[in-house]
């Protein structure tokens, strides 16, 4: 491979003229499509078309039995007068507000700790990453038992600390969401920790050495070198975390099923219940659009914010 002489004329440029160039282009179009096609067929029918269809569906009145009927914004009108929708929206925001900063802080903290030249760092990294690859069902099941109100280990521990009436966690309307957030932070921190570790490895060691020579303390180095250098990573982590928070489903579905009452009901569950359980395709697609617009807005706002802070 490497022995190919570079003195050979580049193909298609010399000696062929325009005819050969167009033929080459046409054949490379064919070749290009042939590579993409097997994946594209599946992707188009099962992702691209549904994405577009979702928008159209939100303007239709359609359940699994009737014929579709155009109703304009009626689904959206129904939605804004429906307090289950508002509860789910509030709960989703609540989950995000808890999950995003806590996971980010935990991931960054662990990454900084693990970025030091310590023996056995590999072991800690494996241990901290492991929750991320365990199934959400197992995570939910184990945490539900850990948080069991009467004899669960967590509340035993809290009583040991002198808290006489520890929270009822997933059985309490006030504490169910914090319980879900704790379990989700525990599970997700390993993933974002890896992203931060990758980011930390790109910071040149000379920066720290120079700062150390200048007598900058550990905190100063962290705030003035680590944090600014990690800005692109933080930006990416923030977007990923926020998007994943708004999509939360599995963990809540298995831990609380949206309860008790509607205290942990989130948007994805409304979409699932209305669309797939009840067969109200139009209405659930309207809720989908809200979820999509929220995610899109957050992404765009964060992109803007990133661009401004780079200037």
């Amino acid at each position, binding site marked *: 491979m490497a022995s190919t002489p570079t003195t050979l004329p580049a193909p298609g440029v010399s000696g062929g003229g325009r005819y050969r160039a167009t033929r080459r282009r046409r054949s*490379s*179009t064919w070749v*290009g499509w042939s590579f*993409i096609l097997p*994946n594209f067929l599946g992707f188009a029918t099962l992702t691209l078309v549904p994405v577009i269809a979702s928008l159209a569906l939100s303007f239709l009145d359609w359940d699994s039995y009737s014929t579709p009927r155009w109703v304009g914004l009626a689904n959206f009108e129904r939605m804004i007068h429906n307090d289950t929708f508002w509860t789910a929206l509030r709960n989703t925001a609540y989950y995000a507000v808890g999950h995003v900063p806590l996971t980010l802080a935990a991931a960054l903290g662990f990454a900084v700790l693990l970025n*030091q030249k310590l023996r056995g760092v590999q072991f800690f990294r494996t241990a901290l990453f492991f929750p991320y690859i365990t199934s959400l069902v197992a995570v939910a099941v184990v945490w539900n*038992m850990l948080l069991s109100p009467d004899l669960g280990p967590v509340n035993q521990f809290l009583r040991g600390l002198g808290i006489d009436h520890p929270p009822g966690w997933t059985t309490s309307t006030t504490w169910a969401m914090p319980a879900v957030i704790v379990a989700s932070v525990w599970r997700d921190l390993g993933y974002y920790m890896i992203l931060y570790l990758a980011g930390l490895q790109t910071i040149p060691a000379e920066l720290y050495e120079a700062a150390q020579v200048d007598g900058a303390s550990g905190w100063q180095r962290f705030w003035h070198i680590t944090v600014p250098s990690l800005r692109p990573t933080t930006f990416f982590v923030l977007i990923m975390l926020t*998007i994943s928070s708004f999509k939360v489903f599995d963990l809540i579905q298995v831990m609380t099923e949206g309860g008790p009452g509607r205290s942990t009901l989130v948007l994805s569950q409304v979409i699932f219940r209305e669309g797939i359980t009840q067969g109200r395709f139009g209405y659930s697609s309207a809720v989908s659009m809200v979820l999509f617009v929220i995610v899109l807005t957050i992404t765009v706002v964060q992109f803007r914010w990133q661009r401004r802070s780079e200037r």
Partner: protein
Amino acid sequence: MTLTAAPPTRTTPPPADPPVRGRRQLFSVRRVFAYVLLTVLSVAVLVPFAWMVSSSLKLDAEVFSVPIRWIPAEFHWDNFTRIWERIPLLTYLRNSVFLSLTITALQVLTGSFAAYGFAKVRFPGRDALFLAYIATIAVPWQAYMVPQYIIMQKAGLVNTHLSLILLQAFSAFGVFLMRQYYLTIPDELSEAARLDGLSEYGIWARIVLPLSKPALASLALLTFVNTWNDYMGPFIYLTDNKLWTIQLGLRSFVGLYDAEYAMIMTGSVLSVLPILVIFLLGQKYFVQGIATSGMK
């Protein structure tokens, strides 16, 4: 990026011996501190697993004993044999293995093939097409799961394994991950192979694919683990008990026998075990895959 910690005072010579020794001492104190902190935090993170494993070897009545017994009074290994009789665990595991392997194989195959088209072949419309792939990564799955479901329903594929295979085999993420990696392979290599008379398919199969083993391993591992752990997909599409995956089986076991704490934990351990083994074998590729997907 402004560096506030690099003022012109650097012209003064670095401090001589004594402060250096002081710094070294401080450094080792910091090391000890870091170790203690890491150990405490890692133990805290691993406690749920420890509790899961210890509970899986107890009697139901012992699981919630006060105070907590970390080491069972008596090890009930028979939990691990009895559970196979209580639920069709073998069927669930077989279904999970089948789905995970099929989906992983298809994703790696079609994903790497498409990624070659996007990374190494120039043709009109390519970049617009790629943008469509990227754009859908940003759309939450929940926002289009209903139309997907309708398509599957119309095609008569609800309650079949094929529906899940089709849904997950053609991921935009897989194409994106592989393309990112292919972009790091110098074009000169494929250029040279072209001059040697190799077709584009030959270049993909004989040059690019062997060179991208780490990326293929990353994608394969991430896909396998995601499919194995997936709950929502099977939950929506599979109603027939015989088709269920281990995740659905475990969930239903919890619902049916919610007082059999020890057995529930045994099931959880068994659902996590295969992933633990795979993870320990391919840890490096996991980390690489995640780090790659995190780079823009």
